[in-house]
Structures are given as structure tokens and as C-alpha cells.
């Protein structure tokens, strides 16, 4: 790695680039990749609104801060939560990462009346699957953002002929989101990928077993679900198979199951970041410590 590249690693790309990543395709547009920009924006938008057709007002109920009440400890009326919701600023994760679609969906679904609040709380058919789709749009937006950041970094630090990695780092991270370890396999570390995938899947499966399948349920444990959804393949399996099951009384180890599935999701976050890094280092290998020093 050149001295300039080594110095730039620690600098980052700045707040403007970071914030631009919340609009799918904007970084690709700035990079002159018009087709990829359209694909990113259209794909994220479409995925969100396919899910939104079913979940609609439920996005308010699943938000970190629901618009009907201020967060614990804050003064009522200090922050205009309802006004923010009306303007489309709703802290539903990971949908928030696909900011334009999440904002438009919130504006279209917002109803401040008691009837509107009743609709937030009303479960609806197939909401597990369609809620997963809106969440997947947020994750997809994050991976497009990562792809844009990677391309910016490659052009900045790669000199006249930017190096080409064995696999796109953002694609490796996205593959690991669906199947833990698959990103490592794509980047050339097959045995390590299989081992990491095994670790994540076993912890997630143990959580589901301990909770009799009810550990991953966005309607009942929406905040925990944010962490669990970091293992996208697992949360999709739960949305299709276990979450729709009727719960006849709380299983004795429900809490343990919820925590284990969340731990598995957080483990997969580490796996995703590592898959990105493994692919990245095939283009920009780590220098010796003396080279990295400013």
C-alpha cells in the first residue's frame, strides 16, 4: 500500500459522503454510475413499497420511538415527535437506512387520530414476511452505500490504475447477511467462512429452539428484532416459518431464546464487516505498522 493510501485509511470520506449513503444510488450517481444509481434507488424503493402495502402503519409501532409518546425521562413536548412523524422522520430500523422510501411511507401512512393509533397496534396477516421486506430494503440501501464508499475509496487511494479486489466488498457483506460466511467464501476464505457461518447459525438455531420458535417476532419484540435481523437469512426463516405460529403461553426460556437470537445477529454483524475487510484487503493489503504511521 502506498504512503498516501496508508494515510488516507484513517481519514475516511467525510460526513457528506456518509450522509449521502442514506439515499440509495446517490453515491453511484456522484461517481458517474448512472445505471447502478437507478438500479439502487429503484430496487430499494420497490422492495420497501412491496412490504409497505401490507405493513403501512405498523412501521410506527415497530419504531424505536413511537410518535405517540416522548422517550422516558424527556419532557413532554420538548421534541415534536408527532410533527417529525408527519414529516416522515420515523426511527424504524433498519428501514431508516433507506431514508427517502421510509419517509414517504411514513407520510402516506400517518394518521394522528385515535383510529390511526389503533391501526399501529393492530397485527395483520403476513406482516412478518412483509415487514422483513421493508427491513430488507433498509439493509439493501446500506449495502449500496457500502458499495459507493468502497468505489470512492478505491478511486481515491488506487492511483492511476485502481486495484481490483477478488470480489466486491459490499457484495461479500450482503452475501454474509443472507448466509453467514458466504461472503468469506466469495472472497476466497472458504474454510473460515464455513466455520464463522456455523457459529452464527448454531447460536441462532439454539435461540429459536429454547423459545419454541417464538424468539424472532417483530410484533412482540421489535427492538430485539433489530439486532436479530442482522442475520437476514435467519430472520427470513423466522418470518416464513416460526413467527406466524400461534403462541400458547410464553415458553419457559423465551427470554433466553430472544437474547441468543440477538447475539447471533450481532455476531453476524462482525462476520459481515470481516467479509468486507477480507475482500478489501485483496486490493489494499495491510501495510507494515511503520508505513501506516502518519
Amino acid at each position: 500500500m502506498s504512503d498516501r493510501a496508508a494515510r488516507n485509511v484513517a481519514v475516511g470520506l467525510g460526513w457528506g459522503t456518509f450522509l449521502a449513503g442514506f439515499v440509495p444510488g446517490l453515491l453511484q450517481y456522484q461517481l458517474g454510475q448512472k445505471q447502478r444509481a437507478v438500479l439502487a434507488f429503484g430496487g430499494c424503493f420497490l422492495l420497501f413499497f412491496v412490504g409497505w402495502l401490507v405493513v403501512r402503519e405498523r412501521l410506527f409501532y415497530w419504531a424505536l420511538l413511537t410518535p405517540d409518546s416522548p422517550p422516558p425521562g424527556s419532557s413532554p413536548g420538548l421534541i415534536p415527535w408527532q410533527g417529525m412523524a408527519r414529516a416522515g422522520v420515523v426511527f424504524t430500523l433498519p428501514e431508516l437506512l433507506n431514508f427517502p422510501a421510509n419517509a414517504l411511507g411514513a407520510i402516506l401512512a400517518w394518521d394522528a387520530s385515535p383510529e390511526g393509533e389503533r391501526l399501529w397496534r393492530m397485527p395483520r396477516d403476513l406482516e412478518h414476511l412483509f415487514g422483513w421486506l421493508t427491513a430488507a430494503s433498509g439493509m439493501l440501501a446500506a449495502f449500496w452505500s457500502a458499495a459507493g464508499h468502497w468505489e470512492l475509496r478505491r478511486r481515491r487511494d488506487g492511483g492511476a490504475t485502481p486495484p481490483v479486489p477478488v470480489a466486491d466488498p459490499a457484495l461479500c457483506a450482503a452475501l454474509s447477511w443472507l448466509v453467514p460466511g458466504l461472503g468469506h467464501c466469495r472472497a476466497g476464505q472458504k474454510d473460515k467462512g464455513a466455520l464463522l457461518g456455523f457459529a452464527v447459525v448454531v447460536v441462532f438455531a439454539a435461540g429459536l429452539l429454547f423459545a419454541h420458535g417464538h424468539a424472532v417476532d417483530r410484533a412482540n419484540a421489535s427492538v430485539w428484532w433489530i439486532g436479530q435481523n442482522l442475520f437476514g437469512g435467519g430472520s427470513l426463516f423466522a418470518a416464513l416459518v416460526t413467527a406466524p405460529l400461534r403462541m400458547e403461553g410464553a415458553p419457559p426460556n423465551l427470554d433466553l431464546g430472544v437474547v441468543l437470537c440477538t447475539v447471533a445477529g450481532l455476531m453476524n454483524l462482525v462476520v459481515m464487516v470481516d467479509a468486507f475487510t477480507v475482500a478489501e484487503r485483496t486490493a489494499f493489503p495491510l501495510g507494515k505498522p511503520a508505513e501506516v504511521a502518519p
Partner: protein
Amino acid sequence: MSLWFRLAVYVPVLFLVAIVVVGQHHDNARDTLRWTVRRTGRWLVWTAALLACMWGLEILFIGW
């Protein structure tokens, strides 16, 4: 929940978490597994120390 049940869940999960943490520093599964065993052992020592501290605080403030 019995102590044995808790241990039967905690130790394997600790090992699996350690695989993911240690895996970031190695390129292949063999090295990852070898160092994971050592890391898990070290974490178990820290776990025992933490439990001892909490037990001591319990005795100090709540009593035997």
C-alpha cells in the same frame, strides 16, 4: 434455571462467539479454532473473576 443448565448454555455460546471474534485475526479455520480455545479459556477466567466480585458485593451489601 439450574447452574448446570446455565453452564451448558453459556460455555458453548462463549466458544461460538469467540470463533467470530478470533476469526477476524486469522485467514483460515485451523488457526481460528486453535486460538479460539485459548481465548475461550481466558474469557472463562474473566467470567469467574466477575462472578466472584459480584458474589463478594452481594455478601457485603445484602449479607450471607
